[in-house]
């Protein structure tokens, strides 16, 4: 399987992206920001199509759009109550803009290129060139490094924002920085699994990990591990079964992992885990 170059590229980019998604996703779930993540993945679509319509590199549009919207969400979302609706409205409009750019792009390219939309929506990890893969891996590693650097204070802020603020931890700045990292990850992962399926790589491994262990650091590592394993399994399966798109296979595995974790941790286990979680958090 590894004789072929496109497979090696896919594994390189896929592993790095999965690692970043698993780690960032852990905090996304812990901070109850899955909806924001969902919004950012859809924004990535608009960014990609807008860049294509303007004739620049798709990645510029991806990163610019997701990071800008991530910061905007962070800036508006002071009040928890308003967040849900604000995110919903802003991102449905941005998606509408995406449709507009798609129409614009289709007219300017003579309607011939229906593939671009499909690639942005569903990803094309087997289509990455060696340069693309290396760049994707590099960006993922930078993101992971930044996240690990802020992991401890971010966890503190997530678990108890009031106490963290009282201790002088910059709560808002950390929140914004985290959203920017989430935006980067969303743009990055769009190349692998596409904007529509990205949520499966962000939310499912992290959700599974948090069901399996109450220790936040262990869950962080577990989320990254599940994401990487599922990506490997998905890539292998879709290599063996060419009809199966790689992104569908990867997401099927991550959702399967979540389902298993959900079934394993019964109602009784969940009570025990929660009591343990309270103990852990009080200690930190």
């Amino acid at each position, binding site marked *: 399987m590894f004789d072929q170059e496109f497979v090696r590229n896919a594994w390189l980019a896929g592993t790095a992206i999965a690692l970043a998604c698993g780690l960032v996703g852990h905090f996304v779930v812990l901070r109850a920001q899955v909806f924001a993540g969902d919004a950012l993945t859809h924004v990535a679509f608009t960014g990609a199509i807008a860049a294509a319509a303007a004739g620049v590199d798709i990645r510029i549009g991806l990163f610019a759009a997701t990071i800008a919207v991530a910061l905007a969400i962070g800036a508006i979302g002071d009040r928890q109550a308003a967040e849900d609706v604000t995110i919903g409205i802003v991102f449905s409009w941005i998606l*509408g803009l995406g449709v507009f750019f798609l129409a614009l792009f289709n007219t300017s390219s003579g*309607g011939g290129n229906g593939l671009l939309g*499909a690639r942005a929506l569903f990803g094309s990890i087997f289509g990455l060139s060696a340069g693309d893969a290396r760049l994707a891996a590099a960006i993922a590693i930078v993101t992971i490094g930044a996240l690990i650097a802020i992991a401890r204070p971010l966890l503190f802020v997530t678990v108890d924002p009031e106490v963290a603020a009282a201790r002088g931890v910059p709560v808002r700045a950390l929140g914004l920085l985290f959203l920017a990292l989430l935006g980067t990850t969303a743009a990055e992962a769009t190349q692998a699994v*596409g904007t529509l399926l990205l*949520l499966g790589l962000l939310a499912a491994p992290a959700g599974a990990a948090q069901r399996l262990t109450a220790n936040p650091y262990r869950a962080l590592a577990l989320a990254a591990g599940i994401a990487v394993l599922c990506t490997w399994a998905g890539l292998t399966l879709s290599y063996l079964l060419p*009809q199966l798109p790689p992104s*569908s296979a990867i997401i*099927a595995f991550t*959702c399967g992992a*979540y389902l298993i974790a959900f079934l394993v941790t019964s109602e009784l286990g969940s009570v025990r885990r929660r009591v343990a979680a309270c103990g852990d958090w009080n200690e930190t």
Partner: protein
Amino acid sequence: MTIMSASLLPVASLTLDPLSDLMQLTAFPFMVNALEAGTIVAVMAGVVGWFMVLRRESFAGHTMSVMAFPGATGALLIGLPAAVGYFVFCGASALVIGLGGSGAHRHRGEESAVTGAVQAFGLACGFLFLGLYQGVLAGYENLLFGDFLGITRGQVLLLAVVTLLALAFFTIVGRPLLFASVDEQIARASGVPVRALALAFLLALGLAVAATAQITGVLLVFALLVAPPATAQQITSRICASLVLSVVLAVMITWVGLALAYFYDYPVGFYITTVAFAAYVLARVGRAVIDDPTLIARRLGLADASA
């Protein structure tokens, strides 16, 4: 593709004379169907969305709207009408989210992890079905972004039936649902079946979304569900007034969106979301200014200070 089919139509142009514009709009049966279907859908989205915004279940609503995609592609694959697939997938996802996310120990992050996993899995299924179908790939854009040109009489009738059912549901459970949405604990203490209501609401939301997706497309249902109620709740905090306003706004947004798409060759989803977004921004700014007339000056001052 909306654009390509639209360019086959005789040229329509906006004259700003209301009567002649209306004549042009209703000159073709497909446009009459689209306007009727759009109105029906808007009424339902206005009501269902109002409760969705109140209950802060936008994410669940969005996830179900996305479920229409695997529904449609799956139905195509096994040769059933797309509407069947819509309703099956949206209903099933409502059940999974309702049962999986609202255990005895409700935790926001975990609940949204369930929702997110459901959404991603549904989309992955949709993509797989699309791959297996191996038909024309061009069709997927209409599924995702709506195609109001192809609505048939049968679809209009189906939508009307679903809307009547949804409205009947809200007439019956509207009051207890409102109670449970506003204050869950007191509602539970006074014997309102909160969990059953939550599940029933998610099912109603799923069905409404499945119906709406046929007009606005899978990705843009959400604009009609969330923007009119949010705008109405900005304008008034009285329950009945904002519910009625939400419906009126949804209908107006749909009409303006459809008319714009008819006269100018861009996708209807783009116009509907843009009009909806503009209405919300206007309402929000207006509300802020009325609440506090010095706000703008202060904000500008603040912005200067922080820059």
